[in-house]
């Protein structure tokens, strides 16, 4: 069928089953927006900033497992979107970002709102396209969705000049994707898998090291089954929270810079690391040369480049972790004896008892960790939890009882302040049944505060819980520990009227000083089901502990910090 490039974009989204597009219009993409006006196959959500559009699409993608879609105009529209795209790239989130571009005749002339968008996005996308002929659009858009979702997922950017959106060409979306150069490996090598199982059977202290790849591969059930059958304990990375479920006796909490004593010690003492969909991030490994020093490594990952990048894997297995773990479970039957690891589990139990994750209550102030635990007690499974970036983010990862994958939505790789609120909006849109909570800081929340308007307009209620320490807390913590308490530009004593702020947009706000007030506010916000801001005054100088100082080794944790 003949149609314009702009119509093709709409048709392609329809074919891909897209129900939501987050975006912001402008001159170069107006033809597409004109077609959006005429259709009702999907809802377009007008965020108030392009960065927020991309974060919302990320939240939507993370909670649903589908490809998120964002649309922006050329020039400043696109550059505003870049932070979101980079964020999605670092956390392997499937996205298709469509941007307008100045007409072909003006490309390269420094025209109004022209920027080399594909040049900018090249280093932070899985792939990108500048479409110069409308006839290519069906193929390109189809490839874009395919690339975003398969292999190691990631953002794909499609830049379309304005005249291409007006150009008429043939639209045929039935042709299958044919990419001679792109063939991700999904089945792991059978011999390698067999060897890995032999290594597991021979190990005394094997440890599952679970990464975010398990969640993107929807492999949590398979991993739980494998752990249960073999009796091997597991540590989760920040990105993998919820994989095992908080009530699973085999999970030893999170590891890494702010991981638990037991998790980090287990990693230091193991003789066989079984890395599944994890990439040995420096925030996880600490000092590389000291990481799991006496262990062999089995590394399962869909991305061959992730294997042996930082830590040499004796058993590299390239493949879809869902498939590989299924195979491993089948092979392990009768070969792996859970009894063998009983002494190892005892050791871990000992670590757990020695220094459990915790905090000290203090009369007269609310501890931020308490707030997280409390949300967990009151909402538990019923909430999806997003966060911004900082101390509140780490406390959430440590103290929230995540019971399922896709429950915890946070910016891991890039650590983007301003992520939480728009992402939580996308999460709400993707899962209307559950409460969408954004745990945030008094610094982070102001980075995309304009989304209060979007949230109200589109009835995408998010409960923003501000753990307000009147500081850029995480930076303040480093200044306390490593800069002799020189609090350079981290004091946020100056505060807005939070309640007035949210009310001016049509939401509800609460100032909370006591635990009782917190309970009441959360209950009220859930009942009212509108965008809310619960401003909780928490103790100002609390530190996230344990802590492995950057570049330190996992077994050298700072367990407590006493002010002199």
């Amino acid at each position, binding site marked *: 069928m003949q149609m314009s490039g702009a119509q093709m974009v709409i048709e392609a989204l329809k074919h891909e089953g897209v129900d939501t597009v987050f975006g912001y219009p402008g001159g170069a993409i107006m033809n597409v927006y004109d077609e959006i006006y005429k259709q009702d196959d999907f809802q377009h959500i007008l965020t108030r900033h392009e960065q927020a559009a991309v974060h919302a699409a990320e939240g939507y993608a993370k909670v649903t497992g589908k490809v998120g879609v964002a649309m922006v105009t050329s020039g400043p529209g696109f550059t505003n979107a870049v932070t979101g795209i980079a964020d999605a790239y670092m956390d392997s989130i499937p996205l298709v970002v469509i941007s307008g571009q100045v007409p072909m005749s003006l490309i390269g002339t420094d025209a109004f709102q022209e920027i080399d968008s594909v040049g900018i996005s090249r280093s932070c996308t899985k792939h990108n396209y*500048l479409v*110069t002929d409308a006839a290519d659009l069906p193929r390109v858009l189809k490839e874009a969705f395919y*690339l975003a979702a398969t292999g190691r997922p990631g953002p794909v950017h499609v830049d379309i000049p304005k005249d291409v959106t007006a150009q008429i060409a043939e639209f045929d979306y039935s042709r299958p994707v044919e990419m*001679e150069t792109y063939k991700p490996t999904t089945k792991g090598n059978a011999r390698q898998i067999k060897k890995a199982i032999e290594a597991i059977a021979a190990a005394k202290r094997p440890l599952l090291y679970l990464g975010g790849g398990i969640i993107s591969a929807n492999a949590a059930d398979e991993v739980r089954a494998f752990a249960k059958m073999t009796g091997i304990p597991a540590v989760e990375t920040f990105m993998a929270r919820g994989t095992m479920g908080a009530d699973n006796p085999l999970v030893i909490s999170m590891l890494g810079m702010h991981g638990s004593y037991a998790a980090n010690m287990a990693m230091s003492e193991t003789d066989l690391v079984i890395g599944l969909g994890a990439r040995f991030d420096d925030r996880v490994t600490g000092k590389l040369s000291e990481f799991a020093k006496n262990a062999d490594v089995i590394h399962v990952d869909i991305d*061959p480049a992730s294997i042996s990048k930082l830590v040499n894997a004796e058993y590299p297995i390239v493949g879809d972790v869902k498939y590989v773990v299924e195979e491993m479970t089948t092979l392990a039957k009768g070969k792996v004896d859970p009894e063998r690891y009983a002494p190892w589990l005892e050791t871990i139990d000992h670590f757990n008892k020695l220094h459990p994750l915790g905090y000290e209550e203090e009369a007269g102030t609310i501890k931020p960790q308490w707030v997280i635990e409390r949300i967990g007690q009151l909402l538990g499974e019923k909430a999806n939890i997003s966060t911004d970036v900082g101390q509140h983010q780490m406390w959430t990862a440590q103290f929230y009882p995540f019971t399922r994958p896709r429950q915890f939505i946070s910016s891991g790789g890039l650590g983007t302040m301003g992520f939480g609120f728009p992402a939580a909006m996308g999460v709400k849109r993707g899962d209307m049944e559950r409460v969408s909570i954004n745990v945030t800081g008094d610094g982070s929340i102001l980075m995309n505060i304009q989304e209060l308007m979007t949230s109200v307009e589109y009835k995408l209620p998010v409960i923003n819980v501000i753990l307000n320490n009147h500081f850029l807390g995480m930076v303040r913590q480093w200044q306390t520990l490593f800069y002799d308490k020189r609090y350079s530009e981290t004091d946020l004593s100056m505060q807005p009227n939070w309640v007035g702020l949210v009310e001016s947009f049509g939401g509800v706000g609460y100032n909370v000083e006591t635990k009782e007030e917190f309970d009441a506010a959360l209950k009220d916000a859930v009942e009212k089901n509108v965008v809310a801001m619960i401003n909780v005054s928490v103790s100002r100088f609390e530190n996230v502990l344990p802590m492995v100082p950057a570049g330190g080794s996992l077994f050298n944790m700072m367990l407590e910090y006493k002010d002199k």
Partner: protein
Amino acid sequence: MMQNERRVVSVILQNEASALSRITDLFSARGYNIESLTVAPIPESKYSRLTIATSGSVRVIEQIIKQLHKLIPVLRVYEHADLVEKEMAMVKFPIGENLSDIETLSKAYNGKIVNVGNDMIIAMVADEPKRVSHYLEAVKRFNPKEIVRSGTVALER
């Protein structure tokens, strides 16, 4: 520290806009070293062949290859073990220099005089990169005015 090694890598990639910059961006973004890079279309195909001479530790080289392979337009990446490698150089000399000496020398390095003008002559050689370096060292005494050197091209034996 692991030993740095020089390696030659061939990449077969689709002829499409910005395919080459994807490669060079990857090298610069990840801090890999490019010693030389040559590229030309493969006749009667929609692919080009790139030859990259690079150096790094074994682990770095392994990453380079994996990361190159990850790029969507890349069809194949070869890390050459046993290869025939050639590079070209052209040198401009003042006309007053000893023409026959230059010619003899160039011949020894698989080359010849390719142009004689009013006030200059140009010689070219095509040889293994190391030998090209030797040649350029040797012709210094003829006061070369300009030197241009290509990247390396390579084929598996």
